């Protein structure tokens, strides 16, 4: 069954002088020729065209799937390069012929006659010149990170502690400032100031982190050393403060959005009861915006924890484990950043770096998931009645 249709291109387009006059005496067409198309019940070409529609939609869906596929692939390939640590391929005995020069370039480890697999197996059993791989869980959870040595140590504990240290400093310093600034922008600032303030602070989020790191390296580090007079010029304190510059814009933006989206009637009700602006902000709006603020914090933490360039340039990059914030540290991300370019493919060192990357990925992934689910649920519960 089909409805009668007309296809211009299929029809005889006839030009005829318009005989019909519109009702009323004005001849609207003025005797000019009009175009009419004879409509007949003809079978439409629509079948072909609708397949085109379907095809277009399927292609669009397929391309959209890319995002999801990438997440899966990231999981797969980052983890994949770390798994040899836990499921090592069969060890081969080390013969003198197999021992090769210490190699720190990607190409030289592969001779032209080997396949990739054989090359990988070989190098897993020879780490550095003279040493045999000694990868154990103890090693991994140890407290020394010295991958380049006769007895390589892959203790990731100092790295984890480094990441946490610098993140905590960044958040402790940056979060209150960002939240207070957001409160100011959303509540106390006059309109014109708000229009200037918001884009300016959000502009900070566009600064490349390498520039922030550079600024910390050349300027902040010296200033702080003069002020505080500590021993190491680059340390977790400097790195943490620099890192806060990266976290502040995110915490600020999300908090400010959350504060602004509190329905007006709430603030008006509070003011009508005789509360002052700051009381309203502190006791009504901020609590109501808690899910959003919490999400902002989580996002800020995620950003700080995963940041690489700033810590690479400003923390001194020494894998020390200490509670002293004025000592240098090494974060997980910085380790990967600094050492990845120099490792041999398939090396234990290489695998450990990927392992660190996996841990980093899981941590930020979990943070993200919590932020999303928690915020979504809390927000829904809170505002379901209000909506």
């Amino acid at each position, binding site marked *: 069954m089909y*409805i*009668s249709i007309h*296809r211009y291109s299929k029809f005889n387009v006839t030009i005829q002088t318009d005989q*019909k006059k519109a009702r009323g005496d004005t001849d609207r067409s003025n005797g000019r020729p009009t175009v009419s198309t004879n409509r007949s019940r003809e079978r*439409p070409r629509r079948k072909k065209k609708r397949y085109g529609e379907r095809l277009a939609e399927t292609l669009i869906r397929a391309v959209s799937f890319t995002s999801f596929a990438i997440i899966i692939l990231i999981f797969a390939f980052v983890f994949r390069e770390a798994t040899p640590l836990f499921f090592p391929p069969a060890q081969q005995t080390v013969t003198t012929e197999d021992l090769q020069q210490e190699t720190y370039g990607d190409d030289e480890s592969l001779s032209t006659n080997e396949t990739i697999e054989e090359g990988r197996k070989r190098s897993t059993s020879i780490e550095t010149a003279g040493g045999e791989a000694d990868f154990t869980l103890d090693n991994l959870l140890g407290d020394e990170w010295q991958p380049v040595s006769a007895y390589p140590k892959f203790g990731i504990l100092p790295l984890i502690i480094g990441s946490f240290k610098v993140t905590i400093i960044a958040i402790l310093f940056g979060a209150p400032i960002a939240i207070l600034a957001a409160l100011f922008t959303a509540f106390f600032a006059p309109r014109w100031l708000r229009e200037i303030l918001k884009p300016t602070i959000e502009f900070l989020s566009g600064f490349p982190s390498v520039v922030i790191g550079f600024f910390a390296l050349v300027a902040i580090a010296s200033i702080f050393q003069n002020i505080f007079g500590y021993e190491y010029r680059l340390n977790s304190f400097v790195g943490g403060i620099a890192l806060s510059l990266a976290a502040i814009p995110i915490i600020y933006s999300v908090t400010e959005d959350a504060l602004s989206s509190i329905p007006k009637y709430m603030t008006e009700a509070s003011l009508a009861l005789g509360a002052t602006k700051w009381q309203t902000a502190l006791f009504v709006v901020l609590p109501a915006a808690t899910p959003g603020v919490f999400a902002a914090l989580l996002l800020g933490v995620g950003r700080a924890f995963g940041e690489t360039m700033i810590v690479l340039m400003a923390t001194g990059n020494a894998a020390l484990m200490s509670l002293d914030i004025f000592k240098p540290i090494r974060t997980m991300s910085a380790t990967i950043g600094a050492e990845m370019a120099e490792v041999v493919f398939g090396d234990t060192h290489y695998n450990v770096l990927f392992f660190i990357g996996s841990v980093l990925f899981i941590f930020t992934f979990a943070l993200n998931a919590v932020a999303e689910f928690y915020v979504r649920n809390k927000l829904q519960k809170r505002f379901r009645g209000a909506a």
Partner: protein
Amino acid sequence: MRMQSTKIKAENLNLFYGDKQALRNINLVIPAYKVTALIGPSGCGKSTFIRTLNRMNDLIDNVRIEGSVVIDGTDIYKKGIDVVELRKKIGMIFQKSNPFPKSIYDNVAYGPRINGLRDKKVLDQIVEQSLRHAAIWDEVKDDLKKSGLALSGGQQQRLCIARALAVQPEILLMDEPASALDPIATAKIEELIYELKENYTIVIVTHNMQQAARVSDFTAFFYLGEIIEYDETKRIFTTPKEKRTEDYVTGRFG
């Protein structure tokens, strides 16, 4: 002379938004080449009903339709009906005029172009013809490249009518076409409707009873999703059969 024939017939039509029923058991016959007006207080289903005629309700989530709408002998809600083709046969004018942000020419030519018509000469002729039939040709003919959005409200609405006419439909659905317009523009639209019915079947939703009385041949009174009464316009407004109809047309409510 054309016989009075049925163009559209709604049979036992029910429409649900989720659990809410918006149309109850609608049975309505819309004759060809006449103007049928749908009147009634706000929210009583007139717009919903008119949108079932070209299946624009399909665009809304959660809509369920029972019953049938038969146009030229075919139930358009049957399985396998090509909705896109259906909409080419039916033109719709919306309450708020919505010309595309394109030139006047491109607005009117949009319909023919998506049908594959490329010949510039033919397009020119169709555009002129449609603008004439929409009674706006004289006002815009000097500058067809001007943006459709640069016209006044009344002109925009007539542009939308021209755009709909360019697809050469058989039926025109108008959902409160003049409600956003001033009295002079409204009068122009009404005059246009009067002329158009010579060649098109027109269904018009209006909350303006005087407009319905002026313009239409048949009128259906909708209330709470049902048709209370349907008759020749003359009779609805002078001797309505139902009390509710009488109350509404005399202004006692709505």
